């Protein structure tokens, strides 16, 4: 939809006496453009200057504008004293941002339509010139180096623009043929980035408005814009339409059209620090259609809806009905990107499913904490011997520690009673108990490198740890920890590995013990055998000695044998 800011000046009544008309030097101090030449009126007698055309009757209170002599504020006046919508949006906080923005924008639109640049394009063949399209669908060329902008295209630029138009038409048909073309979009956004950086280099010249070619009378200045429009067939078609809108513009209420939505999207994207394309609406090919309005694809709108759900931190476990009843999202502009309730509900289902999966994964990755630890910390903070357990429970039933479903009420009560009974014990007992607790922790759990902030859960979840006051407990633990040897390096980290290693060592010890036992037994055997051998050897030796003795003949001679033979002779017989 094309609109012109042209006001029919012919309808203006003649100036009253004493007033003179002047042209204001507009746009010098503003980054955005205003395409209207600013006329102001000066009364020499009353030293008064105003932007509104004075008539014989008293001008309305609204029309009282400050003096155009204060050039520094010229930017604000052009918006009918409304702050710049984008500025208000940027400074406002993120949550309230869009609503405030919407309101501001609508109001602003109601007062007077103002054209502003919308997209920048590289012109093929003319690297130093940029083609800028405005929100109302007009085009001009801009030279960032020289800071020059012209409605009338120079001849060499004109060729480039014609070429650009041809490319544009081709692309459009291609997009229609095979859906969106991602590469093209990326290219264009890259180009836009480049332009932005170029703009940074020339700070003063950040897109000044084209200098209107100094027309002397009001009547033809707007029509001149039409004249310098590139003779493009689609522009020609729009000309008559534009003429019609000019007349209607003054008395018509301004509706919130697709253009505005697109504009708002871009602004929101900037506010969130997103690149175009990141928030679903790719600023490239679709924005270029400009005046025709942009079309959101199905994916875009559902992605937008999901973004909205993300932004409001909606609980994915709630029901759709409660979400709607809460009404938070209904007021958001992105709620309406989906046409009907059924599609919204579908997208909601999809989103909540994804979100729940995400949450699940996140939770799995998180370290599982012992529920006892927060509860014990809570006890230490709040429990006193003055309260019985039911009283204590009643008093703190709203606290998350008391409602944690991982811990049973029975256990909670038991811990409370234990804690209270331990509070009554003398401090020396508590200290010795803590020392016992610390002593029995293995070296890989508690060593010199462990600090008070990250004590192992084995300590934190023990009642002996919490029953001492922190003021006495912490120095004790610190002193104990400083005496400990450093963390064993071979046992690195996980207790499972430690377990395995421990088991292996035990196995080995057992084997060695078995070996020594066996050796002992073998030794015994050997000794026994040696004994037996020794014994038998002795026996043999004895026999030999006997034989020897027998062989030796004494002084008795054979007599000795005879006497001895007498006795064995009789049995042989």
């Amino acid at each position, binding site marked *: 939809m094309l609109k012109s800011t042209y006001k029919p000046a012919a309808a203006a009544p003649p100036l009253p006496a004493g007033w003179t008309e002047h042209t204001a030097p507009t746009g010098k101090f503003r980054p955005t453009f205003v395409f209207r030449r600013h006329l102001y009126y000066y009364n020499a007698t009353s030293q008064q200057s105003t932007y509104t055309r004075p008539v014989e009757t008293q001008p309305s209170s609204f029309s009282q504008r400050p003096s155009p002599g204060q050039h520094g504020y010229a930017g604000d006046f052009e918006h009918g004293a409304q702050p710049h919508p984008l500025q208000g949006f940027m400074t406002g906080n993120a949550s309230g941002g869009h609503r405030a923005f919407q309101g501001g924008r609508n109001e602003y639109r109601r007062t007077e339509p103002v054209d502003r640049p919308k997209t920048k394009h590289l012109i093929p063949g003319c690297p130093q010139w940029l083609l800028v399209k405005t929100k109302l669908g007009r085009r001009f060329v801009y030279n960032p180096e020289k800071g020059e902008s012209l409605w009338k295209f120079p001849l060499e630029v004109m060729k480039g623009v014609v070429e650009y138009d041809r490319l544009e038409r081709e692309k459009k048909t291609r997009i229609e043929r095979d859906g969106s073309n991602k590469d093209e979009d990326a290219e264009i956004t890259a180009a836009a980035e480049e332009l932005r950086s170029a703009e940074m280099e020339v700070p003063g010249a950040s897109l000044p408005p084209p200098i209107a070619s100094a027309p002397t009378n009001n009547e033809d200045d707007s029509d001149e814009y039409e004249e310098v429009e590139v003779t493009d067939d689609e522009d020609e078609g729009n000309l008559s339409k534009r003429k019609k809108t000019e007349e209607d513009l003054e008395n018509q209420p301004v509706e919130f059209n697709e253009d505005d939505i697109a504009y708002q999207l871009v602004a929101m994207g900037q506010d969130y620090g997103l690149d175009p394309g990141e928030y679903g609406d790719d600023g490239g090919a679709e924005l270029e259609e400009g005046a025709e309005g942009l079309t959101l694809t199905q994916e875009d709108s559902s992605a937008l809806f999901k973004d909205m759900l993300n932004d409001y931190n909606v*609980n*994915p*476990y*709630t*029901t759709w*009905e*409660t979400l709607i009843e809460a009404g938070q999202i209904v007021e958001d502009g992105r709620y309406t990107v989906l046409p009907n309730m059924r599609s919204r509900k579908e997208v909601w*289902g999809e989103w*909540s*499913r994804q979100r*729940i*999966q995400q*949450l699940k994964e996140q939770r799995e990755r998180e370290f599982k904490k012992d529920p006892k630890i927060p509860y014990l910390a809570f006890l230490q903070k709040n429990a006193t011997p003055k309260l019985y357990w039911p009283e204590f429970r009643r008093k703190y039933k709203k606290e998350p520690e008391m409602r944690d*479903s*991982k*811990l*049973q*009420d*029975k256990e909670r*009560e038991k811990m409370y009673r234990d804690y209270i009974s331990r509070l009554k014990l003398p401090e020396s007992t508590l200290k010795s108990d803590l020392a016992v607790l610390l002593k029995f922790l293995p070296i890989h759990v508690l060593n010199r490198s462990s600090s008070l902030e990250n004590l192992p859960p084995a300590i934190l979840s023990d009642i002996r740890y919490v029953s001492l006051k922190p003021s006495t407990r912490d120095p004790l633990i610190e002193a104990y920890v400083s005496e400990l040897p450093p963390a064993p390096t071979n046992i690195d980290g996980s207790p499972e590995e430690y377990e395995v290693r421990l088991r292996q060592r035990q196995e080995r010890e057992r084997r060695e013990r078995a070996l020594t036992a066996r050796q002992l037994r073998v030794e015994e055997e050997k000794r026994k055998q040696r004994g037996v051998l020794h014994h038998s050897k002795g026996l043999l030796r004895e026999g030999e000695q006997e034989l020897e003795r027998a062989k030796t003949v004494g002084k008795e001679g054979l007599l000795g044998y005879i006497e001895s033979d007498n006795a064995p002779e009789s049995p042989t017989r």
Partner: protein
Amino acid sequence: MPPVRSARNRKPPPDGFDDIEDTLLEFANKMKDAENASHEGKKRHEVMWPIFQISHQRSRYVYELYYEKEAISKQLYDWLLKNGYADASLIAKWKKQGYEKLCCLRCVQTKETNFNATCICRVPKAQLKEDQMIECVSCGCRGCSSSD
């Protein structure tokens, strides 16, 4: 005598109950309100409608969490069914073709009606007359055929 299960010796619910606890509490509150609401000016059969509606919504919630969003575990789903947070027999019907949106079990109980037919709310909108508004007697359903 069976052991008395109080809050003191109750087993904790399965993992994931904390996530849906708030929504279930909301349903419980709604149900309490519906139970305590005045019956003034209501027809005799209308009194039970909100009760049916809320229990249907709650069953649907649990059903979707388990079968469509896969947000809760089997253990939790069984625990919810066991503890009466959802109607298992109604969910059993929803799994069957043609009964995907069934409002309540009474509406498909043909033997309880005079002509051995299902409730009016089971009739597809296409087969009803133009602009015929229906609210079934048993649960106030305005149409629960799968094709609607």
